């Protein structure tokens, strides 16, 4: 039911969102989140995204299923790109649709927090001087962001 895609090519956020609501009258809220590649102060030529084929799809499906259990969602789209991505280009798309806005907003935030910490993707920097930069390091703040949903669930 949910749309999950791992792809090299770009996506169109607007058309993905409208496909989700087409012909439906039960959806009252659609949240669209697009993550883009930053230039990091102008030093970055591109990010190269490596992924674990097979597991990437399966793990995102697990995270989406988790979101569908927590919130009443009428539709979910999760698209994650891999390969070389230039500053300004799209990396990830999450679209959530629900009858009411709170569920759509919270589920979108949950999906992004979990995708960042659980989906098997890794970013490597390619710098403008032609050199290969470092692997991007996982951020503590992303772990904390994901953990607050555990607390929310444990607390009832």
């Amino acid at each position, binding site marked *: 039911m949910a749309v999950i895609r791992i792809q090299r090519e770009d996506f169109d956020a607007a058309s993905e969102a409208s496909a989700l609501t087409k012909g439906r009258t039960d959806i009252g809220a659609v949240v669209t989140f697009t*993550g883009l590649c930053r230039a990091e102060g102008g030093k970055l030529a591109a990010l190269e*995204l*490596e*992924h*674990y084929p*097979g*597991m990437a799809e*399966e*793990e995102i499906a697990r995270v989406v299923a988790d979101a569908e259990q927590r919130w009443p969602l009428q539709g979910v789209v999760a698209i*994650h790109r891999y390969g070389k991505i230039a500053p300004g280009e799209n*990396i*990830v798309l999450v679209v959530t649709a629900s009858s009411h806005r709170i569920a759509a907003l919270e589920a979108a935030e949950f999906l*992004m927090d979990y*995708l*960042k*910490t*659980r*989906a*098997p*993707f*890794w*970013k*490597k920097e390619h710098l403008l001087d032609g050199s290969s930069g470092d*692997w*991007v*390091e*996982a951020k503590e703040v*992303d772990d904390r962001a994901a953990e607050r949903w555990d607390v929310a669930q444990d607390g009832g």
Partner: protein
Amino acid sequence: MKAVYFAWVRERIGKTGEEILPPDDVKTVGQLIRWLSAKGEEYAYAFEKPDVIRAALDRTHVKHDVDIAGAREIAFFPPMTGG
């Protein structure tokens, strides 16, 4: 079983994956990391900070104390940075 490596774990070891045959006394993910570390300099470098290494058994995230028995594929990688 098949071992696969990603990101800087792959770069340090110098291969994307390989068939491995750990001895019977290697029972958990953590023990397998220690066993692989002893295979050579490149492995020792890749696994120099074992606490940082994440693992997946048959494409599911697992902690280091999980038993590897029966698994067909084990993956080692750094903390994820997608999204």
